[in-house]
């Protein structure tokens, strides 16, 4: 076996329209190594994997897997690799055992041996009890486990795992991590793992490659990468908000200031890993600034990504290969939803540029509403205070673009489920008022009254919105008025 289990040189994948999904990626993975391939959604991870496992021909560049060329020696490549893709590739009407038996048989195992191998693997992934149930009855975690078992049937020396723990509960996740570690450690299997969870890459991988928009933006061991970013960040929250400026002045002596995670916190980038903390506390004491909270954050791979691309890793971004973005929550933080659009009960996370608003409103969800608004009167919503004061809004699509977090419009007359239109970051979100209420958007919590009637005023942040009575056209005056 070659020293490099996977060797990729300038691999490219183009689509007919739009940017390249994979734009000249070069990397290598040594035999027996666990390599973590990390990147936000739409970065090109899955496309890379599909090419390396011969399910997608590359548009350019070269790569060898197990010493075989992926473009010309596909059959040989497939013999030495095991694959578990993002979507567990299973047949809902077959049982677990039947899947394994079929897989083993197709790979050339004689009947008896195939059965034995199947049992072995079921045992290994902890599905022996559920082996005779149809896949349709399996939970998501069970399906992933079976998928892994199927990938292992012919004892491959290289395994590709595409986002193996997305959507799994913590218990299943650790079990899978343990199995991956065991495979690499005890059996010398090379593992190419793609993930959007930096924790996963951090914990499992010996080396990590970070991809964004089809290009590698950073590669190395996690320690190397984090060291490149610099030191830790210290975040301090003053006991009294009025002290904030003095706090900033004090901290500025120790490093560059950065935005705190709340309204009143201040963060400072330290040059090293935290030796200065003691000094800082003394300085704050001397300055007489009372502190209510103090936290030291070591750089994470997220910071690495941020440093290289100017964006945080775990916020989820555009989707060039058309894959739906998963919910970007790190399990411990508040349910942070960037944008949410509910159409007839289905939720999707998407950014909506203003230009798309009209298209979106053409969707059924609002069509009746918009029509009735037109037929039966459009109330005028006037913003009376704040940065957008004086602007008027109606629901016909001519909306005002505000700054981040500003402005919520609710049209109580549209439908039973009051519709809210929120402007965030130059984009528009349209959703149920009820669903937006109490959620966080870009760091701000939304509290909305549940019903607005003509004459009501509502404030959000620094803006105030007043709802005036609709001007009803008369039904009698005829249709299409």
């Amino acid at each position, binding site marked *: 076996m070659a020293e490099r289990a996977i060797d990729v040189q300038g691999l490219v994948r183009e689509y007919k329209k739009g940017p390249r999904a994979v734009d000249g990626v070069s990397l290598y993975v040594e035999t027996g190594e666990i390599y973590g391939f990390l990147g936000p959604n739409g970065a090109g991870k899955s496309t890379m994997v599909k090419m390396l496992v011969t399910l997608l021909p590359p548009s350019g560049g070269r790569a060898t897997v197990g010493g075989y060329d992926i473009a*010309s020696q596909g059959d040989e490549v497939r013999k030495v690799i095991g694959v578990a893709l993002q979507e567990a590739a299973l047949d*809902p009407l077959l049982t677990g055992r039947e899947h394994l038996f079929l897989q083993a048989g197709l790979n050339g195992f004689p009947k008896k041996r195939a059965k034995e191998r199947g049992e072995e693997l079921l045992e290994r992934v902890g599905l022996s009890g559920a082996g005779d149930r149809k896949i349709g009855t399996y939970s998501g975690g069970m399906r992933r486990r079976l998928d892994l078992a199927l990938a292992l049937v012919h004892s491959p020396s290289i395994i590709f795992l595409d986002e193996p723990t997305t959507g799994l509960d913590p218990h299943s996740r650790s079990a899978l991590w343990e199995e991956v570690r065991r495979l690499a450690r005890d059996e010398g299997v090379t593992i190419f793992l793609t993930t959007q969870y930096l924790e996963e890459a951090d914990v499992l991988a010996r080396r990590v490659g970070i991809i964004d928009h089809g290009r590698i933006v950073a590669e190395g061991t996690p320690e190397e990468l984090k060291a490149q970013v610099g030191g830790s960040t210290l975040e301090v929250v003053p006991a009294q908000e009025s002290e904030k400026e003095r706090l900033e002045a004090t901290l500025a002596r120790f490093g560059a200031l950065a935005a705190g995670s709340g309204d009143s916190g201040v963060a400072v980038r330290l040059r090293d890993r935290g030796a200065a903390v003691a000094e800082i506390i003394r300085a704050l004491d001397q300055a007489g600034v009372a502190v209510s909270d103090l936290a030291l954050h070591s750089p994470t791979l997220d910071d690495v990504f941020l440093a290289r691309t100017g964006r945080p890793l775990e916020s989820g971004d555009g989707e060039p290969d058309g894959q739906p973005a998963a919910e970007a929550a790190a399990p411990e933080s508040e349910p942070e939803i960037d944008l949410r659009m509910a159409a007839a009960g289905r939720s999707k996370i998407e950014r909506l540029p203003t230009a798309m608003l009209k298209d979106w409103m053409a969707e059924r969800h609002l069509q009746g509403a918009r029509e009735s608004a037109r037929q039966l009167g459009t109330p005028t919503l006037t913003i009376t205070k704040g940065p957008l004061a004086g602007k008027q809004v109606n629901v016909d699509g001519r909306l005002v673009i505000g700054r981040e977090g500003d402005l919520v419009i609710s049209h109580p007359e549209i439908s039973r489920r009051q519709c809210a239109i929120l402007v965030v970051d130059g984009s528009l979100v349209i959703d149920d008022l009820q669903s937006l209420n109490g959620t966080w958007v870009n760091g701000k919590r939304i509290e909305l009254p549940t019903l607005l009637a003509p004459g009501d005023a509502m404030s959000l942040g620094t803006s105030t919105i007043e709802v005036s009575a609709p001007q009803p056209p008369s039904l009698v005056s005829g249709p299409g008025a």
Partner: protein
Amino acid sequence: MNASFGTQLRLLARRSVVRTFRDPGSIIPAVAVPLILFVVVSAGLEKATHVKGFPTDVIWTFTLTIAFANGAMVTVANTGAAIATDIEHGFINRLALTPMKGFVLVAAQLAGALVLGLIQAVVFLGVGLAAGARFEAGALGALVLVLLFLTSVAAFGAFGIFVGLRTGSGQAVQAIAPLMTVFLFLSSVNFPRNLITADWFKWVATVNPLSYLVEGMRSVLITGWDKQALAYGFAFAGGLLILMIAAAAMSIQGRLVRT
């Protein structure tokens, strides 16, 4: 290690049969719908036997073909849906990663349809005979009918696989089924071709290849041994079978994307 063609075929055929019988959604329409059509049309057309020149005086003998013809067509939806499911769930990728050959998968998918076809044939024969249908060609004739029926099941099954592979969508396959029924009704399935008085329809039925399949099936019931009718029937079913298997085998390469 590579499994031989025979082993691949055996394994995948077994899967196809097992799946067919685990999905009541494919069994019930295959048996119930043709029977319902058979019963309703027969009841409505009972007096047709009084028309001058009608080839039989028991309507059930004439209309039993409807069950068999329609029963064969239902296969399209079944095999199409099965392969579309494999595509939609990504199982086709898993198969692509094994040494399995594409055309073996196509042939194997027909196994389920054929086994179901046997059951359909038994049920239709049973109900038909109970209703009073008679075979002029006797028991051997019934066997020939079943053979012709199974050939057309395979042919339509291959067509369904072709559609499923091209569209990759279960919904598209479902949309084809009513279209096939339209085709069937624009043939001589409901009335003897030589007795049709509307000239334009007679022309439609004459150019519709399904008429020949239907007449081939019907001949063993109402005529006895009509070599020409049987020849036409088998020619249609056999020809369609070969054509569709070739088409499906070519299409599968597009789905088993692998370098």
